[in-house]
């Protein structure tokens, strides 16, 4: 369904750009992943590879299975079938905490800041290899004080970078929604991950914070981390992603660099409709289909469509 007659290529891709294409250097490789809820197949991914050292966006209409796929990869849900590897290690059906320890750290669509802990305590909780988290060693401060000093220093650096250092002794519950998003991202970085998975990082963030959040996500890449994010905000997707994967009805329907994907007829048909500059995040598949059908007839009823 591609517009171009010549088979497209891309520096991240080994071969031709198409749904499920091979990457030069994948960090995640998934095969035959399915997840059913009763009779509904939420995720049915034949093959997908996430490139290393790049910012990859996972987009698609509501109900496309993006978050479910996200939960599967991070161990927060169990697949019916399928396997995937992360940096060559098999991670299918591995519990979430082990996935996180292997270097794949996620954030949540609805922020999960730990409200009645201070901002600094939130950060320290993100650190790995703190021996004082063992109940017996916890009783002997000598065994964990040194590590605590190191991670406190790192936490303070990160908080300064995310402009939360003035808030470090406040309860996390007293932060604004956008600050909580920043805190959650900073906390995820405490574990020094190799792949950061962001579930709708822009949801609920006021426009003033959007630019700084985008900058922070770009910084992750500059520091050598790979990023995979689910997002509805098309401007953000266009602005910062190197690669875009489009899901619809649980499948990967298109892949490519943002400028190509945005003009891909398959994506426009399945998802963007004639309104790809409006807030697509709120458009359901039924609405998208109706809009598309209306557009095809070219004389659809006025006033019923979304502005």
């Amino acid at each position, binding site marked *: 369904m591609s517009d171009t007659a010549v088979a497209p290529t891309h520096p991240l891709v080994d071969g031709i750009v198409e749904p499920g294409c091979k990457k030069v250097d994948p960090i995640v490789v998934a095969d035959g992943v399915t997840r059913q809820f009763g009779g509904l197949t939420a995720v049915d991914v034949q093959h997908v590879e996430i490139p290393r050292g790049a910012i990859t966006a996972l987009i698609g209409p509501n109900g496309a299975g993006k978050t479910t796929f996200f939960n599967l990869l991070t161990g927060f849900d169990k697949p019916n079938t399928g396997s995937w590897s992360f940096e060559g290690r098999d991670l299918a059906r591995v519990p979430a905490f082990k996935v996180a320890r292997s270097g794949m750290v996620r954030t949540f669509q609805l922020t999960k800041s730990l409200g009645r802990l201070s901002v600094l305590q939130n950060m320290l909780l993100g650190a790995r290899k703190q021996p*004082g988290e063992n*109940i017996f060693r*916890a009783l002997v401060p000598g065994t964990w004080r040194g590590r605590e000093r190191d991670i406190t220093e790192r936490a303070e650096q990160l908080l300064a970078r995310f402009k939360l250092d003035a808030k470090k002794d406040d309860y996390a519950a007293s932060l604004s929604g956008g600050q909580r998003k920043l805190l959650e991202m900073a906390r995820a970085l405490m574990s020094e991950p190799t792949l950061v998975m962001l579930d709708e990082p822009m949801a609920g963030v006021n426009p003033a914070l959007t630019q700084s959040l985008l900058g922070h996500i770009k910084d992750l890449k500059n520091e050598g981390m790979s990023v995979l994010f689910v997002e509805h905000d098309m401007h953000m997707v266009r602005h910062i992603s190197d690669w875009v994967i489009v899901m619809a009805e649980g499948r990967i329907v298109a892949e490519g660099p943002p400028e190509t994907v945005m003009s891909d007829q398959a994506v426009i048909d399945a998802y963007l409709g004639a309104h790809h500059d409006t807030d697509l995040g709120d458009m359901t598949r039924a609405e998208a289909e109706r809009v598309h059908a209306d557009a095809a007839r070219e004389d659809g009823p006025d006033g019923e469509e979304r502005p």
Partner: protein
Amino acid sequence: MDWGTILSNAAGELFSPVTAAYALAAIGLSVHFGYSGLLNFGQAGFMAIGAYAFAIPVLSFGWPTGLAFLAAIVASIVFAFILGIPTLRLRADYLAIVTIAAAEIVRYVVSTVGLTDVTGGSQGLNGYNRDFYSLNPFPDGRYGFGPWTYSANEFWVVIVGWTLVIIATVLVFLLMRSPWGRVVKGIREDEDAVRSLGKNVYSYKMQALILGGVMGALAGVIFILPRSLQPANYGTALTFFVWTALLLGGAATLLGPIVGAMIFWVVLSLTGGIINGLRDIGALSFITDGQAGQIRFIIVGLVLMIIVVFRPQGIFGNKKELSFSV
């Protein structure tokens, strides 16, 4: 009314073994609910397990007291595993339902006629404290002063009971300021978030359940040392009295459970004394003996309601910490 006796009796409750037992059970509940967010409505079950696991080996197998203490600890760990393995993976409310049911199961099992030889059935057990008293280092005589005057054996129970309370408090203090405490407090706030940071949430919840459960079991032992073991004492009412003591003092605080238990017993003794005093002078002649005993608990219930409405964080709790509804 003899105010001297009423006040003296009430003051005596401050450091009584029962208060120590309630304080210890409430500290255990504080570890569960206050710090880790585990809704344990079966603390009476842990106390019963501790009491029976202490008394039965002494009476049936002639175990020494030290070993019987150990048996109480081991039994409560096993009980915590039985409760925790199926429920700690589920939402918090499931643990609440399972613990309340499990505590009742324990009470019914120990009171069955078929087990009378071992558990004493509904009559309960006694005589298990002889070996404990034989370990008493204090010679016969009176100890303490004023309302806090004890016989040598009473004094021995008071010392052991409050020593355990102090040990438990120090343990909680050390743990909750450590990274371990940070993890369990994080789990209280949002366990998925903590899971996403690479912590084995299930294991931490199990550790917290065991820790608080062992404290509950030792509280059960302290509770029965100066008296006989009655299965009827381990109903849901006991669990809710311990909850009352905890919420009075403040759930995630160090001294809250102790002061809460003290207030609980002092108020109970004071109201009982005043009601009986009023009946003696004929002011409350319409109240029967049995009713007089129950009115005390009605008043305790009112105190709890007033505290929850006007000071929901308890006496020692941090208002700011509680005001964020998470």
